[in-house]
C-alpha cells in the first residue's frame, strides 16, 4: 500500500506539472500597448561584443541592443531590459514568452525564419576562426576542419557557426560547444580546440581584448556566406514586428541607423542592401 501511495504521489506531481506547463499563452495584437504600459521591452542578448555587450557595471550595450533601444523609444516604449541567454535557448525562450524580442546577432537562416518573426536586417557579418599563430592545421574553411580527422572546432551551442561546421561534415564529437567567448579563447590558447569560430567582428573583439601574439584570425572563412541578423519576435507578435520595421526603415533612411552601428564596426550599407525575405529564402 505504501508503495502504491508513492507512485500515486509521483503521478500526481507529473499531472500537476503538465497542467502548469500547458496554461495557454494569450495571443494578442495589443502587445505594443502592453509594452508601453509596462515601460520596457525584454531583450535576449548573448554578451558577445560588438553585437551585444554587458559592461562590468551591468550596463547593456552593443550594436543590436542599441538599435532596439532606439526603435523602441520611437515606438513609445521608454526602456529595454536585457537578459543574457545561450543562443540555443533564445528561440525557445521567445516562444515561451520569456523575452519580447531577441536582439543578439541571431543570424537569419531558413529554419530560424520558420520559428520566429524577423524584422528587416540589422547587423551583417561574415564568419571567422580563431587559431594558433601561423594556422598550424592550415584551415581555410569548415570543410578543412572536417577533412582533418584529429581537428576540433569550438562554436557557441545553437549558434550559426555550430551548424555551419556540422553541415560541412565535421562530426558531432569534434564540434565542441563552448559556453562563451572567453572560454573559447582560453580553449584555443590551451590547445583544447584547434579553432574557435564566431563572426568576424566578434573574433576581432576577442583578439583585441586577449592581446595574445600567439593567436591568429582567419577571416572570412571560405565558403561561409555573409549573414545578417534581425530583431526576432514571437510569431504571434507580427504586429509589433511590423511597427518595429516601420521605425527601423525610417532610421535607415535618416542615417541614424548608420550612426548607431558603424562605431561598432558594422556596415549599414550591407544591412540596407538586402531584405529579410531574401535572406530567409536563401539556402
Amino acid at each position, binding site marked *: 500500500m505504501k508503495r502504491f501511495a508513492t507512485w500515486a504521489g509521483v503521478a500526481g506531481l507529473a499531472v500537476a506539472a503538465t497542467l502548469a*506547463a*500547458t496554461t495557454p499563452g494569450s495571443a494578442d495584437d495589443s502587445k505594443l500597448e502592453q509594452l508601453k504600459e509596462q515601460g520596457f521591452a525584454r531583450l535576449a542578448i548573448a554578451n558577445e561584443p560588438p553585437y551585444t555587450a554587458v559592461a562590468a557595471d551591468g550596463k547593456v550595450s552593443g550594436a543590436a541592443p542599441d538599435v532596439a533601444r532606439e526603435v523602441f523609444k520611437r515606438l513609445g516604449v521608454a526602456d529595454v531590459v536585457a537578459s543574457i541567454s*545561450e*543562443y*540555443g*535557448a533564445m*528561440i*525557445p525562450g521567445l*516562444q*515561451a514568452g520569456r523575452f519580447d524580442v531577441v536582439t543578439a546577432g541571431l543570424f537569419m537562416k531558413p529554419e530560424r525564419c520558420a*520559428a520566429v518573426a524577423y524584422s528587416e536586417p540589422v547587423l551583417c557579418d561574415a564568419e571567422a576562426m580563431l587559431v594558433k599563430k601561423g594556422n598550424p592545421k592550415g584551415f581555410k574553411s569548415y570543410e578543412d576542419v572536417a577533412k582533418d580527422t584529429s581537428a576540433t572546432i569550438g562554436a557557441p*551551442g*545553437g549558434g550559426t557557426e*555550430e*551548424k555551419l561546421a556540422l553541415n560541412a561534415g565535421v562530426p*558531432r*564529437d569534434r564540434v*565542441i*560547444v*563552448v*559556453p562563451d567567448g572567453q*572560454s573559447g579563447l*582560453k580553449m584555443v*590558447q*590551451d*590547445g*583544447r580546440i584547434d579553432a574557435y569560430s564566431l563572426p568576424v567582428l566578434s573574433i576581432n573583439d576577442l583578439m583585441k581584448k586577449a592581446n595574445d601574439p600567439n593567436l591568429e584570425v582567419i577571416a572570412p572563412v571560405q565558403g561561409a556566406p555573409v549573414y545578417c541578423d534581425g530583431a526576432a519576435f514571437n510569431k504571434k507578435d507580427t504586429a509589433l514586428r511590423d511597427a518595429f520595421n516601420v521605425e527601423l526603415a525610417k532610421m535607415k533612411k535618416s542615417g541614424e541607423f548608420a550612426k548607431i552601428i558603424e562605431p561598432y564596426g558594422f556596415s549599414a550599407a550591407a544591412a540596407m542592401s538586402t531584405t529579410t525575405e531574401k535572406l530567409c529564402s536563401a539556402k
Partner: protein
Amino acid sequence: MEWDWDFVWQILPTLIQGVKITILATLLGSVLAAVVGLAIALLRRSPNRLISRPVGFFAEFIRGTPLLVQLYFIFYVLPDIGILLPPLVAGVIGLGLHYGTYAAEVYRAGIDNVPRGQWEAAKACNLSARQTWTHIILPQAIPPMIPALANYFVAMFKETPLLSAITVLELMNQAKLVANSYYRYVEPMTLVGVFFLIISLFSVILLRWLERRYGRIER
C-alpha cells in the same frame, strides 16, 4: 505545448550516448571518491601534525567551496600551470575530490564507531599498525558505512549535469544540444528527468538492499 513521440524516438539515441557518459562519470567519480575519502580519513588521524593539519585544511577547503567553481578551476585555470586534462578526466577528478571529502567524514564516523576495546585487543595480540587496520578495524568499520557512502554516490550522480559547464557531453549537455538545434525543450528535458528518475529509483532499491545487508551492526 504538444508532445511529439516521433521526435522522442529521433533524439533517444543521442540522449542514450549522454546517459552512458553520465553513468561512466558517476562510477569513476565514486571509485575516486571512495579512495580519496579513505586516504583523507586515515591521514587526518595521523599523530604527526604536519600531516594531519594540512590534510584537514585541504578537506575543509574542498568541502567549503562549490563543485561548479572547482570544476571551472580544474578545467580552465590548471592549464595555466601546464596541467591540461581532457573534459571527462577533469570532471571525474572534480567529482571525486569533492565527494571524497564527504566520504572522508563517513569513514571517520565508521572508524570512530569501532569500540576502543578492539584497538586494545589488537595491541595486546601484538599486531602491527598495518595488521590492526587491515584485519581488525576496517573490516568492522566499513560495512556500516556502505549505505551512507552509497547515499553520497547517488547524490553525486545527480550532480553530474554540472559537468556540462566544462563541455563534457553528458546527458544534460546532449539534451541541451538537441534543444539548441530543434528549438524544443519539452521532450529532451522531460527525458533527462525520466532517465535520472529511473536510475535513481534503481539506486534506491539497491541502497535499501545494502542497508539490510550491511547496515546493522552486530555487537
